[in-house]
């Protein structure tokens, strides 16, 4: 590693330095506003640095990090999502008991972990990033320290630790056979025939378990609903978007480098996971009455949809995955954003009754939430429609008929529970207008911005699609 390698690492360095600066600043002046502002500055500085370093990529810095267009693309997505999360968090935590200052430090550490994940092309950086992300998330999920929140945190801790153990074991097995932890060297060696295929398959399976847990795809989804329900709403938004998105980006890169399509067992495993996730997510969501849990199960289904694009091949694949992730990020942040701004001091607004008649008292908020839910359902004028269209296109382009048909059926099932929430919002139960928490300008503007973005991408996705294929085209 030489000095000139530091420049492409700038986004990482800024994100790593921010928590340190915040900690130092807090020791002089303990203020929630200060921590919040510094966090936003750190994220924005890191975002700006992406543009500064974009002429320098692709560049491999030490064997473990690869900063290329693909990584920059996802870094931008992660940082933008973290910005939204931070803004939403401020309103959520500012009136609550406890110390909201440290929250931002943990949040930035989680962002750092996810950033490392998207730039990693080596098992070492993969595991490093994963652990930094997970450890921060344990604390973040339990941050409000009420019963549900603690339960969720502990549940996540136990399961994440177990899955990390699986992952490590798997990595060790693969390393034992292939003699390398670098993704791009791993593929050819695993396919070379000089390896013990039983050990390799076991190793790959264990890695899949580790990844599958983080992505919350069936059958590794058990934690999702409880964690989504128990975690503070902005943290839920973060878990649903940044943590899963970063992991998916890594999975995509990994699959390209190790030539996953050449390994039929891996392909079959992911196909089964995709189908299971779609059905499990959608069918279980039908049974829920809690909005956060509905969104949790719907996210399981959405990861299943993403896997359809992931399993396709050809030029549409990476673009489809990336665009869908962008749409999913906007939608999920928007949906949990609505939950966040509706949440009172005592509890999160997650019961169906909290939304009944919302359109009467808060027409704009109801409109925004409807837009987000329509996007999740894949209705035109929203980014979710283009995303779903792209996934189906990628699937049909690779003749994955079974997966596409499953997706189609599941989209129809999914409508039931999205429509349930929407109908509840617009139903005319003469509402005893409970004191709804007042909507801050900050949160309102953020949600309005997300909605505009959602509709803009739904009507005119061309520029973003071009950017995505330009950024990710050469590097994978």
């Amino acid at each position, binding site marked *: 590693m030489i000095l000139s390698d530091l420049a492409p690492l700038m986004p990482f360095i800024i994100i790593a330095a921010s928590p340190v600066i915040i900690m130092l600043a807090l020791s002089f002046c303990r203020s929630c506003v200060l921590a919040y502002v510094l966090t936003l500055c750190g994220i924005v500085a890191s975002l700006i640095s992406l543009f500064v370093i974009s002429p320098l990529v692709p560049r491999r810095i030490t064997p473990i990090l690869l900063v290329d267009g693909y990584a920059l693309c996802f870094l931008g997505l992660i940082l933008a999502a973290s910005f939204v999360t931070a803004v939403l968090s401020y309103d959520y935590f500012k009136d609550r008991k406890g110390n909201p200052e440290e929250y931002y430090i943990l949040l930035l550490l989680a962002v750092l972990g996810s950033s490392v994940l998207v730039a990693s092309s080596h098992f070492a950086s993969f595991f490093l990033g994963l652990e930094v992300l997970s450890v921060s998330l344990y604390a973040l999920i339990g941050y409000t320290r009420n019963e549900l929140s603690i339960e969720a945190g502990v549940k996540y801790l136990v399961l994440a630790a177990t899955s990390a153990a699986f992952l490590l074991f798997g990595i060790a097995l693969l390393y034992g056979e292939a003699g390398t932890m670098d993704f791009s060297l791993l593929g050819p060696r695993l396919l070379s025939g000089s390896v013990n295929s039983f050990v390799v398959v076991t190793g790959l399976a264990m890695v899949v378990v580790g990844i599958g847990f983080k992505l919350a795809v069936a059958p590794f989804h058990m934690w999702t609903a409880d964690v989504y329900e128990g975690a503070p709403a902005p943290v839920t938004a973060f878990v649903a978007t940044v943590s899963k998105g970063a992991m998916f980006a890594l999975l995509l890169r990994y699959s390209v480098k190790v030539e996953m399509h050449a390994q039929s067992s891996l392909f079959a495993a992911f196909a089964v996971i995709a189908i299971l996730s779609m059905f499990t997510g959608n069918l279980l969501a039908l049974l829920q009455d809690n909005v956060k849990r509905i969104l949790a199960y719907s996210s399981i289904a959405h990861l299943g949809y993403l896997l359809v694009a992931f399993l396709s091949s050809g030029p549409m694949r990476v673009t489809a995955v990336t665009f869908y992730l962008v749409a999913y990020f906007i939608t999920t942040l928007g949906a949990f954003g609505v939950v966040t701004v509706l949440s009172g001091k005592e509890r999160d607004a997650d019961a169906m009754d909290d939304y009944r008649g919302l359109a009467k008292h808060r027409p704009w908020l109801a409109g925004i939430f409807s837009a987000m839910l*329509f996007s999740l359902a894949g*209705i*035109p*004028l929203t980014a979710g*429609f283009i995303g779903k*269209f792209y996934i*189906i*296109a990628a699937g*049909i*382009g690779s003749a994955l008929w079974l997966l*596409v*048909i499953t997706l*189609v*059926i599941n*989209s*129809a099932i999914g*409508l*039931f529970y999205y*429509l349930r929430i929407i*109908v509840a919002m*617009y*139903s*005319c139960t003469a509402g005893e207008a409970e004191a709804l928490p007042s909507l801050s300008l900050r949160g309102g503007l953020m949600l309005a911005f997300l909605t505009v973005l959602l509709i803009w991408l739904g009507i*005119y*996705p*061309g520029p973003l*699609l*071009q950017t995505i*294929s330009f950024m990710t085209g050469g590097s994978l």
Partner: protein
Amino acid sequence: MILILLILIPFAGGLLSWLLSRWSDKWPRWLSLVAVGLDLALAFSLWIGHRSSLYFIGKETWIAEVKIKWIPGLGIGFHLAMDGLSLLMVMLTAFLGIMSVAASWTEIRERVGFFHFNLMWSLAGIVGVFLSLDLFLFYFFWELMLVPMYFLIALWGHERRIYAAVKFFIFTQLSGLLMLASILGLYFAHGQSTGTFTFDYEQLLGTTMSSTKALFLMLGFVIAFLVKLPAVPFHTWLPDAHTEAPTAGSVILAGLLLKTGAYGLLRFAVPLFPGTASDFSNIAMVLGVAGILYGAMLAFAQRDFKRLVAYTSVSHMGFVLLGIFAGNALALQGAVIQIICHGVSTGALFIIVGALQERIHSRDLEKMGGLWTVAPRIGGAGLFFALASLGLPGLGNFVGEFLVLAGAYAVNPGLTVVATVGLVAATLYSLWMVQGAFFGPRKEGPKVPDFGAREMSVVLLMMAVIVWIGIYPRPIIKAATRTVNTLRQTVGPVQSNKKATQPSSPGGNYDPQ
């Protein structure tokens, strides 16, 4: 440009209605009326301007066309175009749009702004469906018109509105997704055989592919359209949705949404897969006849006035399906006329039922009876449209059904004879309906105010259209001629082994005049 305006005006009108509704409930009503009125005026001016070129077979296929790049990376363009068929459909849309705004003038009292927003947006989506020539754009509008329709049913509907709305949405959404899969299948089939990946309709015409692939892709389209139409095994959403929707919703559902299915068959399913479609035509015709009889039978069994009218739709749309797949000029012209007349006459019946429900708060035929004496205008209108619906000569529906049957007879006489039984059944249920509602002893007593000036002018306008088409259908036939001829040429094999029924010069000489 004028095509974009046709779509944009209702969109903008809907948005404005919603925004201005906070000041007064009057604003959305008048704004929507002006918006659809403008649309009708625009479409009418197009018709006047292109009267002669619609008829003669010139070089260019379209009256007006817009082609803008949209997502060039995928070969998606913003391609709108209008020919005689789409012109007729757009005019029907705008006409029924005016009627439904007028019909809900006093019925809708809650959230008036949002109601008109949804009404206008579903109309805009429907106009978009009738105009788009890019398959992606078509699917876009196809899905877009559903959401406002869903809200119309779910928010302003009757007792079981949520159930009906969800059922409607899921039926159409699932079938729509199947169509999307077919659209993409076609897209890739075309791309692989020619190297250009595009969603453009004109380029996708004549894509070569294996016959099994063509069959599956066509089924995706056909199922989506048959669900909308609806043809018999897929019709179960219709009675619920029609019954529970508010009056304007029912008018749009019956008058326009069902027609998008017929239009889709005429514009997309048949021309894109000509050979497969003609292989499929026997099954489709059987489904059509089954719809005619089954719909009529179920209509006869209803006590609920609105549900009865809903089932007559199934029966009447069976004629459309029969006509489309009979495939000769006579039958196709009949299908087009039936589409328009059914839209107007059933729309009018729904307006009458809606008016009755507003007055006596019931749709139960057993509770009605004797209404003629207290409300002769409602009774007269009801009788008129019941007669139209049973196919009385001189009224538009007769022309449509007659042409369909005459055309289908040349292709499949046996089936046509069976279909004719549907006309008898239509007489039964129509007269039974009039008898139940308007004649007989007066059952119970609240005063029933008769139609006022607004409702009377709505009904009179619709009557005028039906009578006009019944007596002088030539303008409609002329407008549709060129579309029908192109269609007839693509589905040639259907009638190749039958007696030729095509006239040598298209248009005039099978005019019932």
